[in-house]
């Protein structure tokens, strides 16, 4: 088991802010083809990711990770891949699915649930690969 430090939490928070930025950019890049409801969904998700980044700084410090299932490196790798996918994928549903999986992962981390974190990392990977 390892523990999330203050520096780790800051680093994770930055990745979540980056995800919000990428989601906002996706929205702008696809503005004309998105419906009003789709834009609203993306804005709401962009906001949730930003809130997650704040929660990670506040609540993730000290959370224990089961390194065998989901180490900090695995979490960082999964969020990096999610960020890359949001920047390259065109499909709205897939992008929204990735964002939702990111939100679930942040919730598991801030809840301090090692099993939940491992499961959410897996789901995020699935959302990226879908």
């Amino acid at each position, binding site marked *: 088991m390892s523990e999330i430090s203050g520096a780790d939490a800051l680093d994770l928070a930055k990745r979540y802010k980056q995800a919000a930025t990428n989601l906002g950019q996706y*929205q702008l890049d696809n503005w004309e083809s998105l419906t009003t409801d789709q834009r609203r969904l993306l*804005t709401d998700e962009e906001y949730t990711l930003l809130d997650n980044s704040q929660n990670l700084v506040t609540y993730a410090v000290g959370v224990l990770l089961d390194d065998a299932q989901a180490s900090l490196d695995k979490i960082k790798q999964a969020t990096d891949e999610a960020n890359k996918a949001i920047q390259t994928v065109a499909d709205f549903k897939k992008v929204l699915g990735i964002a939702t999986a990111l939100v679930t992962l942040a919730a598991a981390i801030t809840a301090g649930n090692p099993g939940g974190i491992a499961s959410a990392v897996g789901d995020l990977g699935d959302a990226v690969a879908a």
Partner: protein
Amino acid sequence: MKREFDAASEVLLGQCSNSPGLCAVRRRPLLSGIVAASLIVTAGCTNLKPVADFASKASVVTSYPGVAKDYPLILARLKLCGERGSAVSDEKAAERLRDSKRLLEAQTVLQAYAKALGELAADDLPNYDHQIDALNQSLVDGKFAAASDTGNYAQAAKFGLGIFTDLYRRGKIQKLITTYNPSIQKAVAQLLQVVDGYLVSLSDEQIVYNQLVAGRSRKAAEFLKLEGFPEFVSVAAADHAQLLLDREANARALSRGIKAFGQGHQELADNIGTASFKEVLANATKYAEQLQTVIESFNR
């Protein structure tokens, strides 16, 4: 002119379903003009206050200058911290200036629009048509609309030599909101995206400061064993962290305010032609209150 008057009429007639008094007026056309005019003169200006409040509070939020000023400066501070390489490259600096410009363009559009809406709703009309010109120019400058489109926008929104009744003004508000809503929504999305990028940069700054300034200073303090030095480093690091937290809180407040404005405006645009004017005004009040909360959350 007739189209505009029809739109204004629709707004008023939309109220008939909820207002038996006005329906009675409809059945007696000769009397209706006099009675309706009296109603408008006595109640109109006060009724539009929620829209004026919504616009004036949006104007305060959109005028927040902190993020646009600070965004390009972060790179200079990173260099001061000792950061080198691609993170502070000339390319990065140029990108940051572009983002700052995009932010200002979006803020200019939203401010110009909020001002126009506020002037129209508050019956402060002497500069209104000029304000529409300024708004259209800002839309073209920020590439939110083509010059060919803004001509039509102006035709719909400008007051010109219309009859300055409250009914006519309500019709104009409806036109203003529905005509400009697509551009407003795009400006809102652009602004939110740039503010997200700014928040990422603040994280960068905090991480670099912790590693290169505070981290190294702590190691030096341990090595030199100078009395008071570790405490000095801790205080400086805490002050710096608080400074960045304050900047982040302001950026988040701007973001929250712009989101509330965008959402409120979308709802106004969706409902103004269909819901009763009373409901529209209640909605405007709700979002004006949200914006007021945001204004109060800015660190002064």
